[in-house]
C-alpha cells in the first residue's frame, strides 16, 4: 500500500512541476510567437499587394466562400489594402489540395479591378529542389498583371500562359489552379468594383 502511495505521489509531483514550468514558459513565449506570426504576415502582404498606407493584416473582411465536406462553412479572410479611404486591393489565401505532396496555400494579392498584383506560395510540402523551385519571386512575377479576362491562368502544358519546370509540373499546376480559383472566388465576392465595400 505504501508503495502505491509512493508511486502516485511521485508521478503527481513530477506532473505538477512540469505543468508549472510549461505554463511559465508559455507565458513568456506567447508574445514573441504572436509577433513573429504577424511580422511574417505583414511582410507577405507587402509583397503581394499594391501600395497601401493602412495595416491590411488588421483590416480584414471574413467571407463565407463555400462549404466543406461536413457541410460546415468555409471562411476566407480578405486583407484590405487602402490608400486613405480608397480600397486599392485585397489579398487572400487560396488552397489547392492537389500538390505533389499535399496542400498548397497561395497568398494572392489583387488590385481593385481584380488584376493580380502579386502572389506568394505560403505553405507547401513539395519536394525540396524540385517542387520548391516555384517558391521564387521570378515565378511569382509571371502572374503579375494577369486576371481572369486577359490571360489563361494555368501551366503552359494545360493550355495556359504560365511557365513550369519539366519534372515538376504537378506543383506548378496546383499553385496556378489555386491562383485561378482564388481569382474566381474574389470575383464572386467583390465583383470588379472600385469602391469600398
Amino acid at each position, binding site marked *: 500500500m505504501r*508503495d502505491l502511495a*509512493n*508511486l502516485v505521489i*511521485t*508521478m503527481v509531483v*513530477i*506532473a505538477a512541476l*512540469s505543468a508549472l*514550468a*510549461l505554463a511559465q*514558459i*508559455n507565458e*513568456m*513565449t506567447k*508574445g*514573441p*510567437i504572436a509577433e*513573429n506570426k504577424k511580422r*511574417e504576415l505583414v511582410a507577405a502582404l507587402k509583397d503581394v499587394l499594391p501600395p497601401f498606407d493602412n495595416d491590411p493584416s488588421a483590416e480584414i473582411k471574413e467571407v463565407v466562400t463555400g462549404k466543406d465536406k461536413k457541410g460546415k462553412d468555409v471562411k476566407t479572410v480578405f486583407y484590405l489594402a487602402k490608400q486613405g479611404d480608397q480600397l486599392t486591393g485585397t489579398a487572400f489565401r487560396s488552397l489547392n489540395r492537389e500538390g505533389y505532396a499535399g496542400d498548397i496555400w497561395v497568398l494572392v494579392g489583387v488590385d481593385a479591378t481584380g488584376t493580380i498584383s502579386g502572389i506568394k506560395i505560403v505553405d507547401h510540402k513539395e*519536394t*525540396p*529542389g*524540385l517542387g520548391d523551385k516555384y517558391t521564387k519571386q521570378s515565378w511569382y512575377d509571371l502572374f503579375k498583371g494577369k486576371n481572369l479576362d486577359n490571360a489563361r491562368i494555368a501551366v503552359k502544358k494545360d493550355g495556359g500562359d504560365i511557365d513550369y519546370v519539366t519534372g515538376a509540373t504537378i506543383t506548378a499546376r496546383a499553385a496556378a489552379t489555386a491562383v485561378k480559383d482564388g481569382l474566381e472566388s474574389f470575383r464572386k465576392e467583390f465583383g470588379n468594383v472600385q469602391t469600398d465595400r
Partner: protein
Amino acid sequence: MSRLIGEFSKGLWKENPLLVFVLGLCPALAVSSTAANGLGMGLASTFVLTSSNLVVSACRKVIPANVRIPAFIVIVATFVTVTDLVVQAFFPALSKSLGIFIPLIVANCIILGRAESFASKNSVVMAGMDGLGMGFGFTVALTVLAAIREILGSGTLFGSVLFGENYQPMLTMVLAPGAFIALGILLAIMNKINAMKKAK
C-alpha cells in the same frame, strides 16, 4: 577532473551516439539536408539531453523503479516543449525549417536511452557531463552528415553557394535515399578508422 573530461569526451568519438550506438537515426536522417538544420537540431537535442540528464539524476533516489519510464518521459517531454516554444519565439526561421522535428526530439532514442542507462545511475555532475558529451557528439556527427549532403545535393554550405553556375547538384543527396547512403558511408569510414587504430 579527468573523470569528468572522460565522461564528456567519450560522447565525441568512442561512444558517439549517432555513429557508434547508431541512435537518433530518425531526426538525423530527416533534418540533415542542410548544415544549418543539422547544427540547429543538434544543439536543441543537446539542450534537452543535458537538462533531462541533470533532472533525472537529481531525482534518481526518489523515483520508484517501476514508474521510472513514465517519469523520465514526462521530464523529457517538458524540456522538449520548452525548447519548441523558445525556438518558435526567438528563432522562427529555424522553427520553420525544422518543423515537426523539434517536438519529435522527445522520441529521440538517445535521450531516453541515456536517462535510463546513465543518468538514473550516476551523480548529477557526471550525468551533466554525459549529456553534454553525447549531445555535442551527436551535433558534430549530424552537422558533418548534413554538410556532406548539402554540398553534394545543393552545392551550398550553410547557405553560401560554393560552386559556379554550371554545377549540377546530386539531388538524391538531399532526399531520403541520399541520407541513408551518406550515413552508411560515414559509418563505414568511422569503423575503418577504429579498426586501423586497433591494429596499431
